[in-house]
């Protein structure tokens, strides 16, 4: 079936964008964007790629404007695409969708004022599916700017939102705190800490509200009230360790070391690399000491000291491992990026020296941005490694073609001239014969001569047609031959330079990014090592002190 010419360009567009989608649906963002760019270049696109990308993505509902760029972590290009969409769009829902996505992008990158400008462009008909998202984002921007006054009424309205209710409840408490409305803040955090959780995210935000409120009350010296909130935090949630630690300190402050022992006893048995656990290991014998149970205190100090020694050794090995470059090698392992949750997989790596103590660091936005960039650079390096060889091969191909045709072209051109001359000769003869026929036709009684002339004209016409066909075929072949090697020199040289420059830039950026990641990891570990060293010193002192007290008790 042949597509009609009216539908031709639409079919081509569909196929062309379908090729981009083929990669995008597989999560191959580089290939998807490469396909988009290739289409733009292939069709002599003179508009900026952002405009074309916007156009492409506006015709498919599966991806929103800027998605490809965002997924490939090209936030600035995504922002340009979205800004183009904002400028071009006259449709309220589409315009507002783009403004929301632009605001969210800026907010996530910490560009709060840009986020505010983008969210302020939302007006008119806001699509239902993003209405709460827009409201929550607006409130979050105000909070980030520490503008509690406009944030508070927005968050109050969001309390009943299905998706954002729990977040709004917590953030409203924080907004009250920012506005020095302490009583309202405590009441609100109390409410947020009692919300019915519909999912894990709600439960985590509820825990966080209780932990914050408990910590605030402890700071104010309201120990008993603090304990109530700290004890509300689930024992298996992400804030559990910090809550147990704080609960222990609140009990100690309230003069109940026996209760502190319960919290710290639980915590001291947990992951020995966790900050709170390490502190609890030291705090637990301290609480026993306060109860004059010096034998238990000595036993727990000794246990803490042993644990710290093991951890100090791990930390030292980890720091050495990073300094030897093994951390970056571990990050480049292929299995890490096999699925979309590769950051989580990275954090779940087996206990290799490279990743001890780094789970918190790996979870931080800064580190993840740096890490993703490092991995993207490694991917680009791998892709570009073949390109110089490809370009050199094309260059060779062009040179070979040029040499081949150089030898043939004089002969071909000579033949072409002959053909051209013959065509002109035949055409001239044909024209002359036509004129002769016209003259003869004007004279009476020349029927026989006319018939003869017509026959000759027919034969000559066929010869002209044949010569013209040969001429045309020859022209096409001659042009194709020339096209196969002419005008490539400059683009090939430019591509070669650009590729070499890009490879050098990749190497440079990878080195810088790698060093920065190593420094971040190393600094983190060194800070933990210093802290643990202080704990070990205190444990040693506590152990000696406990033993001293036991001896004195025995003597007494």
């Amino acid at each position, binding site marked *: 079936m042949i597509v009609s010419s009216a539908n031709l360009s639409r079919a081509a567009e569909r196929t062309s964008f379908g090729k981009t989608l083929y990669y995008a649906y597989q999560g191959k963002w580089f290939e998807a964007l490469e396909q988009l760019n290739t289409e733009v270049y292939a069709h002599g696109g003179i508009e900026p790629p952002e405009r074309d990308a916007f156009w492409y993505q506006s015709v498919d509902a599966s991806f929103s404007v800027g998605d490809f760029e965002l997924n490939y972590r090209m936030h600035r290009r995504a922002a340009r695409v979205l800004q183009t969409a904002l400028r071009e769009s006259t449709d309220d829902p589409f315009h507002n969708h783009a403004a929301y996505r632009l605001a969210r992008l800026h907010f996530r990158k910490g560009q709060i004022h840009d986020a505010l400008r983008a969210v302020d462009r939302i007006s008119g008909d806001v699509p239902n599916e993003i209405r709460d998202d827009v409201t929550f984002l607006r409130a979050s921007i105000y909070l980030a700017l520490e503008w509690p006054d406009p944030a508070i009424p927005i968050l109050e309205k969001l309390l009943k939102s299905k998706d954002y209710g729990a977040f709004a409840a917590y953030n409203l408490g924080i907004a009250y705190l920012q506005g020095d409305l302490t009583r309202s803040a405590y009441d609100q955090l109390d409410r947020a800490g009692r919300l019915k959780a519909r999912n894990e995210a709600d439960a985590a935000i509820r825990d966080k509200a209780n932990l914050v409120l408990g910590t605030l009350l402890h700071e104010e010296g309201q120990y008993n009230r603090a304990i109530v909130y700290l004890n509300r935090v689930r024992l298996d949630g992400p804030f559990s360790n910090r809550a147990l630690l704080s609960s222990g300190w609140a009990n100690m402050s309230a003069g109940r070391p026996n209760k502190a022992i319960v919290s710290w006893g639980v915590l001291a048995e947990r992951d020995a690399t966790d900050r709170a656990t390490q502190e609890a290991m030291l705090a637990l014998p301290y609480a026993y000491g306060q109860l004059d149970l010096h034998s238990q205190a000595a036993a727990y100090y000794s246990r803490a000291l042993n644990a710290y020694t093991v951890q100090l050794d791990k930390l030292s090995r980890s720091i050495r491992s990073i300094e030897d470059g093994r951390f970056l090698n571990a990050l480049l392992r292929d299995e890490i990026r096999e699925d979309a949750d590769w950051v989580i997989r990275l954090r779940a790596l087996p206990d290799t020296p490279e990743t001890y103590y780094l789970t918190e660091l790996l979870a931080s936005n*800064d580190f993840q941005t740096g890490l993703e960039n490092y991995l993207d650079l490694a991917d680009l390096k791998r892709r570009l490694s073949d390109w110089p060889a490809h370009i050199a091969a094309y260059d060779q191909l062009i040179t070979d073609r040029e040499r081949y045709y150089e030898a043939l072209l004089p002969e071909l051109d000579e033949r072409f001239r002959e053909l051209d001359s013959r065509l002109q000769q035949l055409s001239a003869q044909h024209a002359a014969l036509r004129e002769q026929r016209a003259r003869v036709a004007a004279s009476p009684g020349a029927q026989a001569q006319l018939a003869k002339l017509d026959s000759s004209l027919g034969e000559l016409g066929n010869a002209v047609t044949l010569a013209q066909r040969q001429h045309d075929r020859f022209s096409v072949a001659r042009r194709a031959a020339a096209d196969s090697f002419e005008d490539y020199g400059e683009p090939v040289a430019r591509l070669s330079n650009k590729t070499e420059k890009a490879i050098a830039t990749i190497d440079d950026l990878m080195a810088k990014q790698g060093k920065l990641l190593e420094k971040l990891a190393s600094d983190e570990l060194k800070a933990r090592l210093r802290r643990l060293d202080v704990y070990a010193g205190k444990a040693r002192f506590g152990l000696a002190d406990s033993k001293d007290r036991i001896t004195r008790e025995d003597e007494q």
Partner: protein
Amino acid sequence: MRRMMHSLLLTALLAAPCASTLAQGSAGDDIRELDDQVQDLKTEVLDIAAELNVLEQRLLYPSATRVTVSLALAPNTGFDLSAVEVRIDGSLVAHHIYSARELAALQKGGVQTLYIGNIAAGKHELGVSARGEIAPDADFVRTGRHVFTKGAGARALDITVDPAGPADSGIRIDER
């Protein structure tokens, strides 16, 4: 020390009330600066890649001889394509076995470039053979043929596989 610990904890807890943003400080600045440079580099590399693709196409597959064969699945047919073979004038020019990810991409509307090559002007025959499952334990094999004329310009042939479609073979071939 105890008070300091609590103040730090509180500061950390209150630092990011809702959605996290990038941290401040020199490491954060360095990462942001590098992030900008990496994004610029990506733009540059994507431009080079596109230019290289176009150059490659002009050089290796000039429009006078180029033929491109693409494949898509008919929308909403819900079948699994497992493999496809493409022949031009009886010669096998492309065959592909689909991974789950590729199949999903096709099912959602993606279009795969199966073959780009060169052929002489004149009449040719494209032959397509597709295998897959319409339902569990219900395999299908469909073949399709299409005679096309290669003229002076590039020729594109779009294959659409649809076992449930009206065409007898379940394979439609459009020419552009």
